[in-house]
């Protein structure tokens, strides 16, 4: 009886029953895995990248970052593209499309030269997939002719997109690397080469931790380690930024984007949609929790749409974009003071500590009452106190005051904090 809104949305002319896809990664490595995911409710899969090159993987190959009681704030992965024979992978994709005709199967491919890109494009087209994603962005390939080294080079991106687009009638998606300053440059190159959509972001080159037992990075592989791709919740802000910048670029604003990077809940998914993604991909959260997380993505997004009277998911795509503006367009004419709820305050003094050591010394500490007291003369309205307070609804946005000489005007504020 659960509320089931219609979450279907087109992506590059392909009807998807919902926006939730597995990204090309270990979570979609064979027929059995993809089939289980599709049964669980995922609308489609970007099958793990295939190439002519067959990698030789290391062991172990993962590491995580954690903060206090929260494990997996980020995830590091050294695995490359599929290590299964090409023909097996093509057969799996063929069978998936046959057995799940209403689901969407996307082939992710990676070549090391034009000939390989062309062969791969032809073979996956013959296998009957719905779309092709060109992986220009895996940061842990053992060859510099492949992966993010290619994605950083707009000329190679353009050329390979031309080759792939010339070898297939299917829509082609270029998967971007975030290991670059301006993603718009390779994205525009991909469009010039014939790609129809952009996938962003792939993993961020990283070192998660140093192991002092072996004096190397994690994971430790026979006493050594390498820089490799970082993903999960930690990279979501980076992904949202790249996607926003592309969607705000005049040459890219109409290009459909499939958003990737730390999606774990329906709210994460919504964030990606609101900055312009019309398709979404998930790996890290699936590796941690399993395919089942899609149930709450579907249910949560349905409830949100129901509560906000939204009937078509596409009506939400890019809704936040007009309100994300350059820093010099921000209204800097007022101060929004924090309001302290004395009844809720438990007297921990964290706001006092942070305001003194990291802010503007605008809070004094009433030692007898063990409560903070705001000094408005010093407060700049930065809201560090609100962000550090551990008690829900204790410090909240309070009164708005215009800076000297500013004409009073209406100010929109956020009122609900979780």
């Amino acid at each position, binding site marked *: 009886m*659960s509320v089931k809104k219609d979450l279907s949305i087109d992506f590059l002319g392909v009807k998807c029953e919902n926006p939730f896809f597995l990204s090309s990664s270990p979570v979609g490595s064979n027929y059995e895995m993809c089939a289980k995911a599709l049964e669980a409710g995922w609308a489609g899969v970007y099958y793990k990248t295939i190439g002519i090159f067959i990698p030789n993987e290391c062991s172990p190959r993962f590491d995580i970052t954690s903060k206090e009681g929260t494990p997996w704030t980020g995830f590091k992965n050294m695995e490359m593209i599929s290590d299964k024979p090409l023909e097996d992978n093509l057969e799996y994709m063929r069978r998936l499309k046959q057995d799940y005709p209403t689901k969407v199967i996307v082939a992710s491919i990676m070549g090391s030269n034009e000939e390989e890109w062309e062969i791969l494009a032809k073979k996956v087209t013959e296998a009957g997939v719905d779309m092709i994603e060109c992986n220009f962005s895996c940061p842990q390939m053992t060859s510099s002719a492949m992966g993010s080294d290619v994605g950083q080079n707009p000329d190679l991106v353009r050329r390979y997109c031309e080759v792939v687009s010339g070898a297939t009638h299917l829509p082609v998606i270029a998967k971007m690397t975030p290991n670059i300053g301006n993603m718009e440059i390779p994205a525009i190159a991909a469009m010039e080469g014939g790609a129809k959509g952009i996938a962003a972001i792939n993993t961020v080159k990283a070192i998660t931790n140093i192991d002092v037992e072996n004096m190397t990075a994690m994971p430790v592989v026979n006493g050594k380690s390498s820089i490799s791709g970082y993903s999960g919740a930690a990279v979501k802000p980076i992904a949202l930024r790249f996607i926003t910048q592309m969607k705000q670029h005049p040459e890219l604003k109409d290009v459909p984007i499939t958003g990737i990077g730390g999606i*774990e809940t329906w709210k994460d998914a919504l964030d990606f949609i609101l900055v312009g993604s019309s398709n979404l991909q998930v790996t890290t959260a699936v590796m941690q929790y*399993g395919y089942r997380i899609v149930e709450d993505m579907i249910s*949560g997004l349905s*409830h949100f749409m129901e*509560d906000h009277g939204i009937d078509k998911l596409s009506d939400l795509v890019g809704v936040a974009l007009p309100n994300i503006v350059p820093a010099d367009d921000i209204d800097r004419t007022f101060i929004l003071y924090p309001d302290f709820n004395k009844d809720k305050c438990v007297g921990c003094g964290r706001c006092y500590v942070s305001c003194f050591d990291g802010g503007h010394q605008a809070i004094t500490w009433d030692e007898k009452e063990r409560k903070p007291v705001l000094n408005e003369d010093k407060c700049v309205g930065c809201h560090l106190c609100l962000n550090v307070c551990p008690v829900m*609804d204790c410090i909240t946005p309070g009164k708005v005051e215009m800076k000297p000489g500013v004409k009073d005007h209406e100010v929109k504020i956020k009122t609900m904090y979780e």
Partner: protein
Amino acid sequence: MSKITKKEYGEEMEKGFNLRTAMEEASRCLLCHDSPCSKGCPAGTDPGKFIRSLRFRNIKGAAETVRENNPLAGCCAQVCPYGKMCEQACSRTGIDKPIEIGKIQRFLVEEEKKQNMEFLKAAEPKKEKIACVGAGPASLSCARQLALEGYSVTVYEAQDKAGGVLTYGIIPTRLPQEVVDFDIQTIEKLGVEFKFNESIDAAKLEALKSDYDAVFVGAGLWKSKMVDIPGKDLEGVVTAIDFLREAKTNTDQLLLGENVIVIGGGDVAMDCVTTAKQLGAKATIVYRRTIEEAPADMDEVSFVQSMGIPIIQEFAPAEIVGENGHVTAMRFEGRDGESGLTMKTDQVVLAIGQVVGDDVAGIADGDNVFTGGDMVNGGKTVVEAVAEGKEAAEKIADYFNK
């Protein structure tokens, strides 16, 4: 000096979660592959699912699972003996302590109420009509299930309010009345009709059997067992049922002694003694066996002990002594055959068990009659009554579909 729990009558037991603290607790959940907690719930409330939804910020979806699966979700969240059910099954226990499942459920029901969430929708109306006798947990559960399936349901209740033991028994500190009322509202909204002050006996049952296509009887246990000792008819000797009902419905006018002795070792006895203490009496519990043998839930016993209430064990009632027709003392005999105990008292509350009321005694499944809840199982938990009510609803639907 020991610090004892002092709670006014009706004061809530503990603060509930807010979103932030609920999320913290949900993030302790191991999200087990096979959710043993869900298997531990007789009513199928499915904590594995609703905690996962909360963990992934689908708060409304979580509240939906709770409400759809458990018609008395709010009440169960407060009074369930989780320690014997879902929380006992929790895998997190292997690391430190179980997830506070009941408290998470309570948070979700509170959100449901606060945000006016509505999840239940009755199916297309069906032609059959059902009467449910009693408005306690089993009957309410059966009524809701049938109403959801589109059947027309009328509940007959002897008292003037719905809830049965929830409304007239369990103390408000453990179960605030507004929680009971909210659960019942969600059932009323499905179109279930309530007829109050309508007690049913064998003759009236016959009429219901012909007026309705099926009858569910979940009339509970509303007759107190009595002790057969001298002085049992003295003024000041009351039954647990009467005492708790008076305390809840007529708190200000309750006739309360100065020295109250409660006889018994079940949850009802614990509720009586805390009520007496909360309302200002010097209250004592006397039980003929040991606490180890007592049927009361350990949480209830702990609550009684936390209030500084003496629990005297292994003394059985022997005589109630009176003057001018009113109780003045009570005499007990030790289980060891030698010890004796006499206590000054002006009120004795008998909480030694309940049986089916005379009017409905002997009613059993047959023809178009179905039964469930305490009157069938002899008196178990609210959640088990909910489960039995649901099962009975299924049997009734099967009966119609034959």
